[in-house]
């Protein structure tokens, strides 16, 4: 009996560890995973943005905080684009029509890419919607944010400013 229960216990622990492993999201990324995604006007890749400070934002039309983040991102983009700042907003909607409606409503001045399969989101280990990553000129993630808080926009803007070399 002892042997039996021990083996079952081991099996149970193994099963739970497998389940826990599948739920783990990588959050300790240093180098921004590369991507090559379609936009409304051709493809965009992270490599083509090397040398610029990039804000990568993962969003979806059904995500309520994204409705707040888009107007803020538009402002920030207009403020820093002359310095070499780029925003790539990666849409994760399964239904592209919903994304198109959202884009029509907000008409963002920055690049919007589409990843309906969520492979890029998986590579970045997106923990929440929206999630944003500030990538410096070397392609290193220097800051990441899960969700969008209008009260913390000053902090994020400061992080963008600091990403530019002095």
């Amino acid at each position, binding site marked *: 009996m002892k042997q039996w*229960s021990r083996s*079952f216990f081991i099996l149970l622990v193994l*099963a*739970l560890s497998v389940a826990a492993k599948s*739920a783990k999201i990588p959050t300790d990324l240093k180098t921004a995973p590369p991507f090559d995604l379609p936009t409304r006007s051709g493809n965009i890749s992270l490599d083509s943005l090397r040398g610029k400070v990039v804000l990568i934002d993962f969003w979806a039309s059904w995500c309520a905080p994204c409705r707040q983040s888009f107007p803020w991102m538009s402002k920030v983009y207009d403020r820093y684009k002359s310095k070499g700042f780029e925003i790539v907003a990666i849409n994760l909607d399964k239904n592209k029509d919903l994304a198109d409606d959202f884009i029509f409503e907000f008409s963002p001045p920055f690049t919007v890419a589409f990843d309906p399969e969520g492979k890029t989101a998986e590579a970045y280990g*997106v*923990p929440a919607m929206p999630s944003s990553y500030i990538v410096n000129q070397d392609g290193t993630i220097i800051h990441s944010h899960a969700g969008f808080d209008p009260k913390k926009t000053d902090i994020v803007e400061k992080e963008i400013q600091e990403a530019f070399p002095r």
Partner: protein
Amino acid sequence: MKTIIRWKLRLLLIFLSFTAFGCATIHPWDRDLLAEKKMSLNPSPMVRAVDNHIYFSKEGSTGGDDIGGGGCGCN
């Protein structure tokens, strides 16, 4: 008697192991599919209410569900 309890315990452990294997991760970007109307327990409340109204009217009484009335089918 003891052997039966032991076997029950073993079966329970096997069952628990399998349920643990059955865990799935829902990615944050997949939650739109779960939030769709067709994924709700009652995707069409109006149709369900009408169906219930007719059913309980025919049965001659109401109750045990979410509509009121005395069974006349007139409310």
